[in-house]
């Protein structure tokens, strides 16, 4: 494997290393939790780098493709979706964003566009096999077509599950069938087998994580909210990514719950004077975590009590049979996974989440950032506004790029927030 193909992954690992050092020096327990997670990510990156260097099997997969199966097959996997995300810490990201515009234009989601650029420029390791994702948006589907057609990747075997638009029994049966075909594909192309006993163990462990996630989110209902903007996404990352079905992930959740419970008992919130409880209905991007979210807390006492990735319906999977496990995974992958659950199907899924989150978490305002890549969601703004009106909570639609501040500057975003809070009498 050429050095060129590993340089982004190595760069990301080094960024994570910097994050670990910064989090470890922090006195707060939630930062120490973040440090632990980043350490696991570093370990995971090292494993992929090792596989690439030694020619051992590993796969590429986007998020939300039932990673419980990879864990049960002991199959190392990576996604370069995270590269533009953590790239916020690197000075080269801006250059990558500009270069990606020259290939695909301005209006394709930045994170997908940059991922496509990395493929076209041969900057990521070529895997043994690849699992594609065909939802929740058009951009994801075409990115995978681009990858599959790239001259360096066109010989990589690829499988992608076809997502139904519905959530009924027929849809779950269909998607469970797709997942079984995915397992057959992985077995054929990686030489690994899915052992049903191990599969059950992984799912049972993941069920424990989901139970703890429910408990944690129940604690976030407290006023003041014990934690801020960053941990929802991390919880999702643990339960639905590299620590899925891993006892270390379960331990991470236990520590998270313990810290939140302690803070709730002490009536201590993330922000000493919590004045606005905010539902950020999208990704909490790393880039914004350096300026916008801290500014919201400090300037306005505005806490992100819930965000899109921190919220899930947390389906426990019945492990009594092979069939029930595939059915459960189908439901989890389609109906629980943040962003997939809302954007894959009809708009009612967005609206019902708003209703539940606003009611359950005592939300004062709903913010739809209007990320430039989220076209289907941005076609809901009228419906979301009306839903919020019925609930009696203000709704803010910004219009921005979660990963590129040249689209809407941070000052413009802050100005929008200030005007909104002032006009609505919040804070």
């Amino acid at each position: 494997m050429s050095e060129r193909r590993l340089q982004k992954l190595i760069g990301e690992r080094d960024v994570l290393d910097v994050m670990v050092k910064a989090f470890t020096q922090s006195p707060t327990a939630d930062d120490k939790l973040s440090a632990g997670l980043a350490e696991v990510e570093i370990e995971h990156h090292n494993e992929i780098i090792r596989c690439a260097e030694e020619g051992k099997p590993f796969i590429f997969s986007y998020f939300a493709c039932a990673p419980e199966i990879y864990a049960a097959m002991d199959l190392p996997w990576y996604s370069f979706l995270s590269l533009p995300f953590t790239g916020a810490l690197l000075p080269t990201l801006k250059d990558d964003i500009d270069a990606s515009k020259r290939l695909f234009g301005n209006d394709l989601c930045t994170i997908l566009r940059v991922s496509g650029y990395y493929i076209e420029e041969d900057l990521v390791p070529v895997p043994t096999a690849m699992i594609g994702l065909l939802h929740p948006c058009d951009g994801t589907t075409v990115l995978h077509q681009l990858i599959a057609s790239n001259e360096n990747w066109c010989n990589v075997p690829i499988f992608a599950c076809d997502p139904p638009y519905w959530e009924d029994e027929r849809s779950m049966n269909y998607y469970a069938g797709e997942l079984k075909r995915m397992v057959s594909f992985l077995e054929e192309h990686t030489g690994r087998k899915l052992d049903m006993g191990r599969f059950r163990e992984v799912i049972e462990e993941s069920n424990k994580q989901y139970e703890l996630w429910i408990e944690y989110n129940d604690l976030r209902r407290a006023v003041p909210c014990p934690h801020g903007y960053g941990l929802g996404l991390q919880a999702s990352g643990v339960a639905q990514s590299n620590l899925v079905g891993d006892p270390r992930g379960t331990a991470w959740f236990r520590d998270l719950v313990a810290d939140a419970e302690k803070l709730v008992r002490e009536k201590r919130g993330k922000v000493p004077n919590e004045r606005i409880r905010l539902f950020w209905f999208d990704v909490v991007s790393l880039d914004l975590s350096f300026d916008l979210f801290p500014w919201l807390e400090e300037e306005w006492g505005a806490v992100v009590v819930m965000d899109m990735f921190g919220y899930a319906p947390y389906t426990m999977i019945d492990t009594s049979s092979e069939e029930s496990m595939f059915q459960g995974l189908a439901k989890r992958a389609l109906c629980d996974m943040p962003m997939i659950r809302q954007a894959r199907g009809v708009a009612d899924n967005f609206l019902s989440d708003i209703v539940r989150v606003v009611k359950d978490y005592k939300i004062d305002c709903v913010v739809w950032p209007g990320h430039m890549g989220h076209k289907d969601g941005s076609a809901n703004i009228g419906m979301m506004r009306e839903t919020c009106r019925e609930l009696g909570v203000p709704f803010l639609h910004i219009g921005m790029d979660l990963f590129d501040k040249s689209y809407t500057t941070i000052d413009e975003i802050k100005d929008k927030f200030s005007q909104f809070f002032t006009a609505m009498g919040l804070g």
Partner: protein
Amino acid sequence: METAIKSKALQEFAEAAETLVNPAVRSWREQGGKVVGYFCSYMPEEVITAAGFLPFRMRATGSTGTELADAYLSSINCSFTRHCFNMGLRGEYDFIDGAVWPSTCDHVRRIYDNWKRKVNTPFVHIMSLPKKTDEPQVEWYRDEMVNLKEALEKHFGVEITDERLWEAIRLHNETRRLQRQLYELRKRGSPPISGAEALAVMVAGTAMPKERYNQLLRGLLDEISPSEGNADYRARLMIMGGILDDPAFIEVIEEQGGLVVTDSLCFGTRIMWKDVDEGASDPLTALAQYYVADRPSCPRMFGDYARRADFVRDMIRDFKVDGIIGERLIFCDQWAVEHYMLAKEFKPEGIPYLELDREYLLGGIGQMRTRIQAFLETIER
């Protein structure tokens, strides 16, 4: 570019393309016929025909603004969806009795959600369209067609029998065969029909009763087949992209001396290059097989890129294409990447490729002319 042919049929097709409620639709309505609108060419029109209704492909022809839709959609939603929904909100689609959507793209599938809440169309239905073209997906879409059939039967109190489905399939296949005959004429050195006129013929096919349309198209073919058309062009062009229903767009290209001789459009070859299998045992399976797997796909379908590229390659060879114009509605992710891939694919083969981003309503013509002129200068014969 004007051809010498100005037949009555061509005028009727042009009128159908230029207006929303054309005389054929008006006449259908006056006779008590029902009209069911549909979005996107993956919608099986035959099911609507079999119900005894007129399938009408939704467009925003004649729209002048998006002032009402802008309260519901955002500025990153494509202008087709904003104009179309705006027309729905303005009541300009009150002539339809129902509307059906496949879950095609991020923009169009959300018009369904908004439409069902804000526009008083009596029957609305959305179908889960697969994103792959394999056998399980054909079976899935067949079940979706069963659901559509049952929903139409229940709402309108009609029965859609297998016999009526087969009749509809035969009728629509006849349309496709006639349309392919029209395209055969465009392979000539002096095609008797321009690209703009051909697009009008194709658009009209989605907005008229098929019997009437087929009759007119037969007449047109009889009339123009013996004729010689324009040989005075600078280059033979293929146009490719997403929804393009405005012949005026092609007129701008042809005014510069390019002759559009073929396409890969969902108002063009993609809806008629193949037939539904009339020898299959079950009509809905035949339709599902056609719509999911057999017809030329668009980038909506994953895993079918190689077949799409081969389709374009065949078109280039058979129609002696000198260059490709890839048109795209701004904010369409599917075509953003597909055009990039195809341009890259055909570059080593020496096929020039011009990517034109556009809004649904024709605008920025000066800039477009300049780009087309420059493109033609690089490839002209």
